[in-house]
Every structure is written in C-alpha cells, then in structure tokens.
C-alpha cells in the first residue's frame, strides 16, 4: 500500500460570511480545512397552550370569584457572555369584543391582570401586572450569559396565570382576546 501523509497546518482567521474559501491548497496526501462558526445571542418561544380558557374559580354563579386561566410556554435563550440580556413580554393585540370584558377600557376594578413563573434561566415578572393593549408588559427577564436547558431539542418552561374579574355588567356570551408573547436576547 502506498500512502502519503503530509500534514499541512493551516492558520486561518474565522470568516463572518457563510461559505467556503475556495482557495485550494496544492495536491498532497492530506489537507486541512478550518471550520469556523459565530455563535450569537438567540431566543425562541413556543406557546404550548393553544387556547387559554378563563374559568370561574368557584362555581358558576358567584360574581366574587374571578375568571382565571393559565398560558403555558416553553423557550430557548442564549444571551451574550458579557453585557447581554433579554426579556419575554406580552401584549394584548386583540381585545375582547364589545359587551364583554375589556383590556383597553375595563370597568372600574375590572382590569385583567397576570402573574408569571419561569425556569431558573430567567427571572419571572413580579405580579400581579395589569395586561395592556397599549404596550408590551413584562413576563420574564434574562441576565447576561443566560442559557436555557441543555440537550438538542430541550427548552425551559414558564407560565402566565390570568385573572379577570367577573363583573355582572358583562353580557353573557363567549369573548376572546389575543395575547402576543415576544422573546428577545442580546
């Protein structure tokens, strides 16, 4: 067997633009390519509760018991090693229909609020926080060099627990609103 092994040590700076540098070395029994990657801050969120149902806490006829419901979500996050951070926020992007509850202009004392939980990779909001259609409100914050769970496909989890007063002024019916969650990382 005739085998030629000539090690070519290649020193190359990492490239920030995708693709191979097509400058080929001369032909020999072996050659070395430097593989580089730039890992940046990233964040992704998935709402695992398709529709959050708000139900009365105790019995169907007691106005004192608010409607409550829980939205579950999972997230992945990586913030920059130095000077990084991030957050998860929520905004009511579509209010309940007229005649029912209202996030934008609730009757006095009828503001919809929420509390939060998260995994150790984040700091959950300090609730209860009043939900808003005007701007995003906090669900969780991330510190510098934050990392969610290890393992390919793994993620961390959190919840938002909604509370909506049961005001007799609301007309009977089914009312829906849309809560939009946003995650970011730097």
């Amino acid at each position, binding site marked *: 067997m005739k085998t030629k092994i000539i090690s070519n040590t290649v020193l190359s700076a990492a490239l920030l633009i995708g693709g191979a540098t097509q400058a080929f070395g001369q032909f020999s029994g072996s050659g070395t390519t430097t593989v580089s990657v730039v890992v940046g801050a990233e964040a992704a969120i998935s709402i695992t509760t398709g529709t959050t149902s708000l139900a009365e806490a105790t019995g169907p006829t007691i106005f004192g018991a608010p409607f409550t419901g829980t939205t579950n979500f999972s997230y992945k996050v*990586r913030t920059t090693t130095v000077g990084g951070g991030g957050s998860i926020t929520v905004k009511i992007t579509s209010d309940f229909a007229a005649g029912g509850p209202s996030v934008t202009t609730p009757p006095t004392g009828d503001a919809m609020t929420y509390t939060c939980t998260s995994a150790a990779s984040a700091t959950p909001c300090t609730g209860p926080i009043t939900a808003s259609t005007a701007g995003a409100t906090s669900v969780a914050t991330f510190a510098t060099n934050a990392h969610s769970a290890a393992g390919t496909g793994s993620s961390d989890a959190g919840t938002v627990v909604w509370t909506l007063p049961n005001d007799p002024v609301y007309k009977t019916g089914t009312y829906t609103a849309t809560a939009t969650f946003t995650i970011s990382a730097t």
Partner: protein
Amino acid sequence: MNILRFPAARVPVAVVVLYGFLIPPAGVKAATSTVSNSLKATIDALGELSVPTSVSLTHAGTVFNSFSGSVTVQYLARTTAAGGGNLTMKVTQDFQTGGPSVAGGDLTYVCGAAGLGTACGASTASTSAATSVVTLPSSACTGGGTPCSATSPNTVSVTFTLADRPTVDTGTYTASVQFTISAT
C-alpha cells in the same frame, strides 16, 4: 649529446599513415555495434487531494436553527486491479471550550455524489477516528474518460451541520478538519 633528427622526408609518410587510420579506404564498411537498454516505469497506486483552507458555518434567523456549510474536496486517484482506497476526514482540533463540541456529537456531515468512487452517507464527525468521505474501488483512475473518470480532478462535496445548543456561549469558534486519501 646526440640529437635524434628525423629526416624531413619521413614527416609526410607519418602523416599519411595516421590519416589512414581515420578514414577507411573506399569500399570498406564501418563496424557498428548496438546495445539495448530496457526502460521500466512502475506505475503505482496513488492518491492526492486538495481542500479549501476554510469554511464558515452559518444559519438563518436567531431561533436555534442548526449551522451549516459545505466544502468541495478535489482528488486524484489510481488504484490497482486488486486494490482500492479511501478518502477520509478527522477533526484534529475540536472547537474551543464553551463552544460546540465535535467530541459531544454536535458536528455531522453528508457527502454529495463523488466523481470517482462511492460517497459517504449521513455521518457524525469524530475527533478520535477518521470517518469515511469516499470509498475508491479497484482499478480506479482519474481523468481521460472510460475506463477512468470523465473529469480530472474528481470532486466530492461535504456538507457540515452543526447543532445550535442554547448552552453554548456566544463567541467565534474554530475546529480543524484533516482530509486524507489513500490508495492501494
């Protein structure tokens, strides 16, 4: 002291005699001899390759999609009627601490069609052993058309996929991949 003197008349005779040795008389053929020398070239099995100096792995978005990038390996090969060969790769230097890990199985690859030989399927890169890129058959040769390959050099594309794990720290990381070819 006696001085030997040659009569002047002897000089022309000496010249004629000497000249007679150089030019054969008319009608006499020259003696010729020939010898043969055997030229022997031993064509051995051989393999050589060339690779790009570097490749960058990239991905779309910031939602933990895997990174990917490709390199095209050029190679020349000649194998014997009873031989074969291999084009392999091995990660000789893993990514730096805090980054992705080849030893941890983060780097996989697939091979495109090989211009000569059989390309690899889906594979996991390794720091401990060489892994296959192309397998060369017996009686393989590069270039010139049948029975050799149509083109020279032959090429094979290797596409890397690197898992984007949230536990990896931000930063720039590099690894060294050594490609080796052998032929028998």
